[in-house]
């Protein structure tokens, strides 16, 4: 390099040879980067088609059930949906329902209208009580047949992942696995019902179990160390208010490494 070609940053112009060289490097970078990014995106795991109707509030009217978690049974002429209620942010609905009941009286078995944000995917629907206690619109008496008990129960051993249904069914993509683990832990710790996702024999579809303890107590804190990992568990499963429920034997949990 001759003296004339020596590069000095504070000079107005850089030497021509530097200029041409840097130009070639930049052109190379501007060609390679899109190719690199395209490969990264192409080989990315696909996202599910779950939805969170962020910014849209919907009013739903149905029969309120308190077990296994707050659920609204919404029926029309063709079908009945059992909609799991969750709170705003990373919280469950139980405390909100408690506050609403303190102000408006017991909701159990009544026809209740809630306003909130719909979350849905894979045949499951949740309603976020976005405005917390203000999400309660109205209620009126309705005669509802009581839950018949555990006559559909069976002992099962399952392998799957514990996740928080709020994120998984629409709020976050992805709402599962290692990168979502901390968020799922926060959500379940905040009272959102833990759900166990179990892959079926077809290798594509899933079954979802709301988790409870042996005595049907909440076990949110107890399952936190196992969230977002593949685990094997045993317990008793049964149907309740449209959901499969697993009365989980906490001592049976095994991490699959």
């Amino acid at each position, binding site marked *: 390099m001759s003296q004339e070609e020596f590069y000095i*940053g504070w000079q107005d112009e850089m030497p021509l040879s530097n200029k041409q060289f840097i130009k070639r490097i930049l052109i190379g970078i*501007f060609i390679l980067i899109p190719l690199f*990014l395209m490969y*990264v995106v*192409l080989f990315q*795991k696909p996202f599910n088609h779950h939805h969170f109707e962020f910014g849209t509030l919907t009013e739903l009217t149905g029969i309120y059930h308190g077990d296994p978690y707050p659920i609204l049974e919404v029926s029309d002429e063709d079908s009945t949906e059992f909609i799991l209620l969750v709170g705003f*942010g990373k919280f469950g609905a139980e405390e909100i329902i408690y506050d609403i009941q303190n102000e408006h009286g017991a909701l159990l078995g009544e026809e209740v209208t809630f306003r909130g944000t719909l979350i849905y995917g894979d045949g499951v629907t949740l309603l976020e009580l976005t405005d917390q206690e203000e999400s309660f619109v109205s209620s009126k008496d309705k005669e509802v047949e009581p839950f018949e008990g555990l006559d559909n129960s069976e002992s099962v051993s399952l392998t799957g992942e514990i996740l928080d249904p709020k994120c998984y069914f629409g709020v976050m993509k992805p709402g599962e696995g290692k990168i979502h683990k901390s968020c799922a832990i926060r959500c379940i710790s905040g009272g959102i019902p833990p759900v166990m996702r179990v892959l079926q024999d077809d290798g594509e579809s899933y079954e979802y179990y709301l988790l409870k303890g042996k005595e049907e107590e909440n076990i949110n804190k107890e399952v936190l160390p196992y969230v977002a990992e593949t685990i094997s568990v045993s317990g008793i499963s049964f149907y309740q208010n449209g959901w499969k429920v697993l009365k989980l034997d906490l001592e049976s949990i095994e991490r699959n490494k």
Partner: protein
Amino acid sequence: MSLNYTSVQWNKQKKGYDKILWLGIAFMLICFIGFQFLFHPEITAETIIIRATAITAFLLLHIILSIGPLARLNTKFLPLLYNRRHLGVSMFFIALIHGVFSIIQFHALGDINAVVSVFTSNQHYQEISEFPFQTLGFFALLILFLMAATSHDFWLNNLSPKIWKTLHMGVYVVYGLLVLHVALGALQYEDHLVDWVFLLGGFIAILSLHLVTGIKENRRLQKDRDLLKKDGFYEVCLISDIPESCAKTIFLEGENIAIFKYDGRLSAVNNVCKHQMGPLGEGRIVDGCITCPWHGYQYKPEDGKAPPPFTEKLKTYQLKVLDGKVWVNPDPNEEGTYIEPVKLEDA
């Protein structure tokens, strides 16, 4: 060259550098977001922001780490080095968006403080595959903040180049933390082979560049150790080995020395620039001054002083010429000490 504090000493090349830098950043973000909408239209806005800023910042870090060794291996890369600090600060801001969004998305609106949640939600610190990778990113961001906050020459002058340089070598700690952050985080979910190839490929490329540069430098030092010594002077090279207006560098008795040939004379100064410890010996004599290849800081060869009004000073060394060979005494003179240049006509 800094004299008084000013926010940024803009010049034409810095402005051009920043324009291309931000054009490049915008290009990366647009490409990534475009490909996401094309191939994964179901993606949410939050996930796009988190992923686009993550990959852009990580790519920029690879470029930042490559520039140093590339400029040592080929001086044509020097224009990329000149304003590298703006590249680093830009990278920090993009990483900051990633960090803040991730903390809000995954940890806020919960039953404990969001920052506490980063460290306590996942407590499998003893396991590699389940390790809470967010903590690694958090510490990397903290170091990047310290580096970005002290990037201005104001801090360089106040902390001293040595401390400043040590602090800014933290970029290698950041890189290590981020490689682990990606490997133990995103790649535990996105486990396609291509992702591992990219991550390890980038790591190997950075490592190789530094190794090659280090080996080249080490070879030069090895050779210099076998020199003849007489009366405190070492025989360095033939006069003709030093190109006009350039230098021969040598490492003797712990002293890093650059011997410059210019206008029929020879002078020796310390090889380390007072600004950012750049290799002066890879610079040139321009307008009668030694000019650093990194940022153009200048020193007079005969006394190692920056021309007024600047105040930086270098150590100087005694030289002599015998039978066409250059000899240097590595015992340094005080910074700024005038040493009569060796006139080659007399020699």
